C-alpha cells in the first residue's frame, strides 16, 4: 500500500507542469508500449484538462475494454459518444461492453445501430459484432433479424465454434441465450444450426441431407420443419410448403406456422388449399398481416373477390406499401374485368420494387 502511494506521488511529480499535449503524447506512447495502467492514467489526466477531447475517451474506452473493465469502458465511451454521437465503432465497442455487463437491451440498441452504420463491414470485427447482435436479437424474439446476421457470416464462410448453436436457437425460435440452454437441447440446436449454416453457405444438398437426418432423429420435435421451411422459402416456395405442412401437422396450434403455410400455399398459386388454412390463421390471429394477405388473395382467386379485397385493403390501411396486397388487388381487378384499375395496381407494384 505504501509502495503504491509512493509510486503514485512519484507519477504525480512526473506529471506536474505537463501540458495537455505532453499528456496526450505520453499517453499514446504508453499505449503503444503496452503499458496499460500508465496509458489510462495519462489519458485520464489529459481528459481532466480537456474533457471534450474525444480521442482520449475513445482510447480509454478501448483500453478498458481490452482490460475487461467493461463498466469503465462504458463510462469512457459514453463521454466519447456525447461528443461524437454517431460513431459506429464506439457504439460497437460500447455494445460489446454492455453485453458483458448484462445490459442486454442497451447492448442490442448499440450493436444494432453500429452494424446498421457499417461497423461490421470489416473482416476482423464484423464476425464478433454480428454474432453478438444475433444472440441479442434472438433473445429479443427478433429471430428473422438474427438469422440475417448469421446469414452474412455463413455466406462468407466464417467459422466460429459458437455459431451453430446460436443459429439453431434463432432458427428454432428459442428466446434465450446460448449460456442458458439446457445440455439436452444443446445438441439439437447445434445440429440444426450446422444444417442451416450449410444452406446459408450455399451447400443446399448438404443442408438437405443434414435436415433429413434431424427429422429422422427428432420426429416429434417442433420448430425443426418450421426452421427448414423458413430457410427454403426465399429459394423455393414449393419446398417450403412441404416443411410448413409438416410443422402444422406436428403442432396444429402453431399460429405462425399455420399463417406461413397459408401464405406459402397462396404464394405458389395453390389458392383452394390456401383458403381454409388461411381462414384458420386469421381466426387465430386476426391482426396477422401474413394471414390476412394469404386469405385475401386466396379468396379473390376462389371466387370471393369482395371479401378478399376487403382483407387486402385492411392490410393497406396499416401498411400502404405492402407489395403483396397490391399484387393481390391487381389480380382482383383483373378478375373483375377492371382493366384500368388492374393496370394501375400493377404499376404501383412496379413502383414499389423499382
Amino acid at each position, binding site marked *: 500500500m505504501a509502495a503504491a502511494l509512493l509510486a503514485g506521488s512519484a507519477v504525480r511529480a512526473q506529471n506536474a507542469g505537463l501540458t495537455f499535449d505532453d499528456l496526450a503524447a505520453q499517453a499514446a506512447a504508453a499505449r503503444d508500449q503496452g503499458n496499460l495502467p500508465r496509458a489510462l492514467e495519462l489519458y485520464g489526466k489529459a481528459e481532466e484538462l480537456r474533457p471534450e477531447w474525444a480521442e482520449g475517451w475513445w482510447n480509454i474506452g478501448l483500453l478498458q475494454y481490452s482490460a475487461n473493465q467493461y463498466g469503465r469502458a462504458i463510462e469512457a465511451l459514453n463521454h466519447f459518444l456525447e461528443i461524437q454521437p454517431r460513431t459506429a465503432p464506439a457504439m460497437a465497442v460500447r455494445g460489446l461492453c454492455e453485453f458483458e455487463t448484462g445490459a442486454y437491451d442497451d447492448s442490442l440498441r448499440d450493436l444494432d445501430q453500429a452494424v446498421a452504420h457499417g461497423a461490421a463491414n470489416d473482416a476482423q470485427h464484423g464476425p464478433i459484432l454480428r454474432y453478438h447482435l444475433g444472440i441479442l436479437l434472438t433473445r429479443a424474439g427478433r429471430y428473422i433479424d438474427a438469422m440475417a446476421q448469421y446469414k452474412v457470416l455463413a455466406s462468407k464462410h466464417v467459422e466460429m465454434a459458437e455459431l451453430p448453436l446460436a443459429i439453431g436457437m434463432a432458427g428454432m425460435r428459442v428466446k434465450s441465450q446460448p449460456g442458458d440452454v439446457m445440455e439436452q437441447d444443446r445438441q439439437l440446436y447445434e445440429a440444426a444450426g450446422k444444417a442451416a449454416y450449410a444452406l446459408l453457405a450455399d451447400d443446399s444438398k448438404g443442408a438437405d441431407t443434414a435436415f433429413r437426418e434431424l427429422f429422422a432423429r427428432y420426429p416429434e420435435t417442433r420448430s425443426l420443419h418450421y426452421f427448414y421451411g423458413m430457410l427454403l422459402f426465399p429459394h423455393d416456395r414449393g419446398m417450403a410448403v412441404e416443411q410448413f405442412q409438416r410443422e402444422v401437422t406436428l403442432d396444429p396450434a402453431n399460429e405462425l406456422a399455420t399463417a406461413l403455410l397459408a401464405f406459402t400455399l397462396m404464394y405458389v398459386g395453390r389458392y383452394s388449399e390456401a383458403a381454409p388454412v388461411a381462414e384458420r390463421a386469421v381466426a387465430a390471429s386476426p391482426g396477422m398481416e401474413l394471414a390476412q394477405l394469404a386469405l385475401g388473395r386466396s379468396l379473390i382467386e376462389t371466387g370471393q373477390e369482395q371479401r378478399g379485397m376487403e382483407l387486402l385493403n385492411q392490410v393497406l390501411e396499416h401498411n400502404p406499401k405492402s407489395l*403483396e396486397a397490391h399484387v393481390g388487388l391487381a389480380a382482383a381487378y383483373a*378478375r373483375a374485368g377492371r382493366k384500368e384499375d388492374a393496370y394501375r395496381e400493377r404499376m404501383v407494384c412496379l413502383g414499389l420494387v423499382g
Partner: protein
Amino acid sequence: MAWVCGTALASVVLAFGGASAQEKAAAPEPVACGTCHLGVVNAYAQAPMRHAMEPGNGDPALQAHPSLSAQQNGYTYTVQTKDGKSTYTVTGAGGSLTLPLRWILGQHSQTWVLEKDGRFYESMVSYFAKDQSLATTPGDDAIVPHTLTEAMGRELSIWEVRNCFTCHATGFNPEEEPAPEKLTGGLNCERCHAGADKHMADAQQDNFKSIPKSLKKMNAGETSDFCGQCHRTWDKVVREGWHGPATVRFQPYRLANSRCFDSADKRIGCIACHDPHQQVNRSEAYYDTKCLACHAGGAAAVKKSAAASKPAAAAAPVGKACPVAKEKCVHCHMPKVDLAGGHAVFTDHQIRVVRAGEAYPN
C-alpha cells in the same frame, strides 16, 4: 407397353402397322396421344418445348462443331464430339477435368448439366448458336473460380435442380432424389395436359370421359399464369424484384405490363399468338393479324366486332387503330432487345409505343 407421345409415335405406328389383322384382333393396338391427335403430335415433335432438354449425346449442333473451345479466367474449355458422344473438358490450374455432357438444356443456345460426385453443375460455358461458339453461361460472368471444379461449372442448388428439370423435362418427381436417367427430356403431352396419361389409359378401355382440362378455354390471365410456371409469371418477377433488360426473357411478365393487357381477353393471351405445338412462327404478317384482331380500328371494326356471331367476340373491346401503319406492328411496338451476354435477341412483349432512344421500361 408404356404410353408414348411425340417423336416416339412414328416408331409405334410403324411397329404396329405391320401386324396382321389376326394379330390386331388378338391384341388391341395401344392408344397413344397420336392415335387420336396425330396432327398435333406430329407437329409438336418439332416444337421447341419438345426439345427443351435433350440427352447429351447425338446433338446435331455439336456434331456439326465437333471441337469447340474457349478461354476464360485462365481456364481452357473444350467440348469434343466424336462418334455422337460429347465431352466437356476444363483445363487449368495444373489439372484437367473431363465429364460427359449429361443433359443439354435449350434448343438453339445450349447450356449443359454436368454431374460430378452425385452433384449437379451448370456448365460454366455454353454453346451459342448465333455465334456458333462457346462463351460464358449467362449469369455466370461474375464467378471467379478457385478450383478446377468451380471452373467446370456452378453447382446447382437442390431447388435449381428441381426448377431446371421441372421446366425442361417430364417426369421429375420433386419428392424423390433427382434421377436424371429416369427423366424424359423435353416436355411431353402430360407435362402441360395433366391427366393425359389417364385419358389414354381410359381411352384404351373406350372410356372418353376423363378428358384433360382444355387449356384453350383459359383467358389471357390464366394462360399467362400457366405458361408463366416456366416463362415466369408477372407475380413471380415482381415478388422477386427482378427488373432491367434481363426481364425481357420473361414474356408473361412483360406482356402483363402492357397497357392493353386484359386478363379476361383471350386475344392478348400467350396462345393467341403462339401455338406451343408448332415451331415458332417467324412471319411478321402473321403477328400483324394478331395485333389487328384488336386494333383494326374505326367504325368498321366496331361494326364487325359487334356483328360477330360469337357473343364473346361481340363484346370484345376494340383498340385504337394505329395511325402510322397496319403492318410490321412489332417494329414499333414490340422491339427486339439484344441482351448483353445473352448472345441472343429477344422480343420485348411489353406492347407499347416505343420512342427512339427511350430507356428499357422497368
